[in-house]
């Protein structure tokens, strides 16, 4: 496609947001970046991806790191900034892509090609999905959902002024449980097509 398009997908754990992002990437025939962003960064800078993965999306340890004149020696913070810079670089180069998480809706906030989406789902639907997908009990699934969502929220809110999941921070907030993953992706596709024209 000719016109640049960036789709930033944030999601609740268990909402199927990642699957929706995958579908959108296929529909628009553009690359998707999620955990593979680290591999991209490691390859471009000739670094060891395993070393980077150790610090990815980890909360900052306040007792083991400090900031001086804007320089932080929290490795998770430095890695987060490296990812934000890389996302900006891709966007500034005019590339089209789908990006999952990584605070992309805030990092690229004023970029004209950006559509930001937040995918949520009903609690029941998330539990069923996570329990089936991971082959675990419902109570285990619920704990996992709570833990993962807390982690995502903490990571996001550390680097962004606007809060994680706050509807004012995204172009579209959608409950994937109402129509299912495929239909939600179809509707988002329509919305994005309209935007891209």
């Amino acid at each position, binding site marked *: 496609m000719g016109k640049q398009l960036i789709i930033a997908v944030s999601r609740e754990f268990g909402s199927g947001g990642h699957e929706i992002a995958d579908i959108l990437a296929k529909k628009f025939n553009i690359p998707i970046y999620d955990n593979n962003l680290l591999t991209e960064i*490691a390859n471009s*800078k*000739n*670094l060891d991806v395993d*070393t*980077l993965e150790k*610090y990815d999306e980890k909360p900052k340890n*306040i*007792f*083991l*790191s*400090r*900031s*001086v*004149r804007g*320089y*932080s*020696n929290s*490795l998770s913070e*430095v*890695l987060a*900034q*490296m990812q934000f810079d890389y996302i900006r670089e891709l966007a500034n180069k005019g590339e089209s892509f789908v990006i999952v998480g990584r605070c992309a809706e805030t990092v690229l906030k004023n970029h004209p090609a950006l559509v930001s989406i937040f995918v949520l789902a009903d609690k029941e639907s998330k539990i069923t999905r996570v329990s089936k997908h991971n082959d675990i009990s419902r109570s285990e699934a619920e704990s996992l959902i709570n833990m993962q969502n807390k982690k995502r929220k903490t990571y996001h809110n550390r680097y962004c002024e606007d809060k994680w999941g706050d509807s004012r921070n995204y172009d579209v907030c959608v409950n994937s449980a109402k129509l299912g993953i495929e239909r939600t992706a179809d509707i988002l596709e329509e919305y994005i097509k309209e935007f891209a024209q």
Partner: protein
Amino acid sequence: MVAQILAVTIFVAMFVLIVIDKIERQYITLGCGVITLVVVFGLCMHSVTAITDTLNIHSIFTRTFWYTGGAAEESSSGINWATIIFVAGMMVMVEGMARVGFFRWLCMRIAKLVHYKTMAIFMTFMIMSAVLSMFIDSITVILFLAAVTVELSQLLKFNPVPMILSEIFCANLGGSATMCGDPPNIIIGTSLGYSFADFITNTGLIALVALVAVLVYFYFVFHSELSASNGENVDISSLPDPKEAIKDKKGFAISCIIFATAVVLLITHAMTGLTVAFIGLFIALVTIITAPKHIHEIVSKVDYKTLLFFIGLFVVVGGLEQTGILEIAANFIGKISGGNAMLMVAIIIWLSAFASAFVDNIPFAATMIPIIKALAATEGVSLSTLAWALSMGTDIGGSATPIGASANVVGTSVAAKAGHPIGWGLYCKKVVPATILVLVISTVGIFVRYF
């Protein structure tokens, strides 16, 4: 009693908030400073004198604040305006030097002089880090040195981590050698009335011996790792010319003259009677006057946040001083050392080092100064000996961990941004032995020379 409890509570809250790092540290110290003034001095002590003594503004308008006529500078409590003005002045000078490309030029020039041999760069950069840090704040030194090290490591294909770790350590060590090298020393010097010459002939000598030991230590620790790539297969002609680093030739020459003037003024200030506050202000004015087109650029880059941090910090420590808490702490140290001066010195060095490894060494040094003053008065120990012990303890102890001193944070951050994360394990494994080595040298040096 209530005032004492409140002063301690505010002090502890300040430290906790600094560690948590959620609020910028200058707001923390200023906020705690205001609470100290209003609640401790105003509401609890009803003491206007405590407020005016701590704010200490009147000191700026005395002749001895700017010129001592050869006598030792007067010591005072509360906000140490001499430190603030001196640090601000040096910041202006350093920004002026950075603008014209001085630091990058110096690093590239030295690398070229040693024909881009990895081991030679490693050794010379350690020495350069120590020497520059004697006169310039270690953050700036490491910022430029680490950045050039990363750049050279990419060109010459070596691992920059050993070099950055050694540069950080030597920057902290070099800072301990002079009165203006490290913030704790500036505070110690201006608070207790010691001159540049006092520091260089006391902590400076210890730092020199320690530097030799540290060069040997790091050579053996990193030799095999760095020797593997000694720049043999690199086409030197493809490397950047040091001259390219100079952004403004005229400005560069002026910056070199200003820097040399600052060094001469600092070395001779005990003889000329010019105080560090005067030197700081003079150097800042000359820097600004000689670069009229760049005043905004230079002044806007000055780290005013650190200056505000200092102001708030001095007020909070003033709260502890005015309420007599620090005297109690001094009595406690005196008691556990049983009046043994050598034990007292050992406690101060090693306690300061341990504390500075984990908390910011600036507030720690500021807090310890009234304590060593009280110890000297009550236990009859030489104040200068305690001051050198405090200086070496805080400056060197700060090297031990990635968060102990500002240079460590900046250096490890630059390395991580370039894709070379330095975790606590790696950092401490290489640097803690060096820290212990220098602390032992400092302790033995002080024992041998002063007892």
